[in-house]
């Protein structure tokens, strides 16, 4: 993995050797986009947080990793925790923050002791705390906060609600966290992996980062690969790689479909395996689930819908009411008694959910249903296996 090749501390040293504006410029030149899934330009988010008025600013690391099929953040936190904290410290330099928070999902509680130990060592080595690395007035420290079992808390405004001791219900945006974030203060929320890449970029330069990837999706990304393949695990690969190339890498050449981006992502059928995995084509936070020739795609769609129904915060109608209707539809298809007319109705309901839901959960909940209905009609219509 690239992260293993970076000299510890080189990124922070480089950040402290230049004015904050240059740190931002370097990240900007690299084209780094958020590794959590949405792909928002990291330099722009940091610049807005830097410009936002307020003397108490926060850097938050989103370690809620709840997207089905994603586990690369767990691996980064386990093997490269120092890099994540170094990246958060670089963000603090860039935006002028003194406080950092890692929001760690409850399911990863077993990582907490390790993270606290690494933080303590960084404090002892003057990499956190007051006058960091001997720079007068540069104070920054990081706390770990635990989640309590909720996927939607990975959405950045829900995450902030949760940190404030509330139910994890997404807020209306705007205002954005960069202006009104944690306790009303300017806040940048970034994915675990985004911070680690920021370190690499400061250490090795923007051109080094850009040498791989595509024009709009620069650099490498970590992929979490699971399902029907011979070599599941975490892969460090350039963005823009085609689904077919990725499958060859992981030993899943005979797949009939691949889920890119988790339950919130897209289900890519075999005929589209030449498409590229990149923000401009098939975007992803890194979850790749391979479905072999024998898999029942209806079972896949059902599993994802059950996930969304279980995790919806219930705040808005399209998501709360829509997802159970789609699940009913899947059960009808399974029994073999869904008419084409009704299926079309369900598809337009799915499209309404995509448009009218308040947050990404409801907006993406119908996507696998829609792509399975679109791409696997022969497999799902006219079933006779039911009761």
């Amino acid at each position, binding site marked *: 993995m690239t992260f293993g090749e970076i000299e510890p501390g080189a990124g922070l040293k480089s950040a402290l050797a230049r004015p904050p504006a240059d740190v931002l410029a370097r990240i900007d030149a690299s084209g780094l986009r958020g590794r959590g899934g949405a792909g928002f330009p990291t330099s722009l988010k940091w610049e807005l947080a830097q410009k936002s008025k307020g003397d108490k600013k926060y850097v938050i690391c989103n370690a809620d990793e709840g997207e089905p099929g994603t586990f690369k953040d767990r691996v980064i936190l386990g093997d490269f925790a120092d890099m994540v904290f170094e990246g958060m410290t670089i963000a603090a330099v860039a935006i002028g923050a003194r406080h950092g928070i890692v929001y760690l999902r409850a399911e990863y509680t077993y990582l907490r002791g390790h993270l606290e130990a690494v933080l303590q060592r960084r404090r002892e080595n003057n990499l956190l705390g007051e006058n960091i690395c001997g720079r007068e007035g540069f104070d920054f420290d990081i706390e770990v906060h635990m989640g309590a079992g909720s996927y939607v808390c990975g959405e950045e405004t829900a995450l902030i609600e949760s940190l404030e001791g509330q139910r994890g219900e997404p807020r209306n945006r705007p205002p954005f966290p960069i202006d009104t974030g944690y306790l009303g203060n300017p806040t940048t929320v970034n994915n675990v992996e985004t911070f680690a890449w920021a370190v690499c970029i400061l250490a090795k330069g923007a051109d080094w980062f850009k040498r791989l990837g595509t024009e709009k999706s620069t650099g490498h990304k970590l992929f979490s690969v699971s399902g029907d393949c011979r070599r599941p695990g975490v892969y460090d690969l350039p963005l823009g790689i085609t689904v077919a190339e990725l499958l060859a890498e992981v030993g899943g050449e005979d797949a009939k479909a691949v889920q890119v981006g988790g339950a919130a992502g897209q289900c890519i059928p075999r005929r589209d395996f030449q498409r590229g995995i990149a923000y401009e084509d098939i975007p992803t936070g890194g979850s790749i689930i391979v479905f072999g020739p024998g898999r029942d795609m209806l079972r896949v769609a059902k*599993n994802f819908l059950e996930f969304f129904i279980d995790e919806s915060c219930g705040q808005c109608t399209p998501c709360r009411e829509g997802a159970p209707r789609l699940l009913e539809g899947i059960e009808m298809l399974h029994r073999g008694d869904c008419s084409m007319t009704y299926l079309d109705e369900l598809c337009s309901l799915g499209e309404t959910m995509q448009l009218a839901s308040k947050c990404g959960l409801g907006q993406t909940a119908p996507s696998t249903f829609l792509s399975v209905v679109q791409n696997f009609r022969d497999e799902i219509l006219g079933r006779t296996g039911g009761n």
Partner: protein
Amino acid sequence: MLLTERERLHDELAELVTRYGRDRSSLLFILQEVQRRHYHISQYAMQVIADLLDIHPVEVHSVVSFYSFLDERPQGQFVIRLCRTITCDMAGKDHVARQLENDLGIKFGETTPDGKFSLDWANCLGMCDRGPALLVNQQVHTQVTPEKVHGILQECRQTFGVHATSDGRETRT
């Protein structure tokens, strides 16, 4: 609940509120600690916490009910959470589930009468390359097979009776 027990819980909660701060943003910390120590957050505990933080008990309840790792009803000393999401499903989680039910004599969502085990579903645990996966309290087990279930439960039973569980919680006396 006996009066002395109530008083003891009240003092304990007051101490937690002092430790984490009398702010709304301390609420989750406090609730997580109560859950860890008492295996649930009782109505009475919610009321006391609300009083101490000067918020309405309904607000505390609405937070507790939102999060799947916070419970109003007493959970077992060992909470087993089996992942039901897609890759673990494809890796055979149904068989593991059945064997867990067989060996514990309870269904998902239930707690054994002796209060030792609760059985629950979880969504993706971030172990998808090594499914089926389950959590026993904070500890993760991967590539679980029906055959391995017995050993996992035995390991818990052996921890029971000594002074600390696998994640360092004090046992009830």
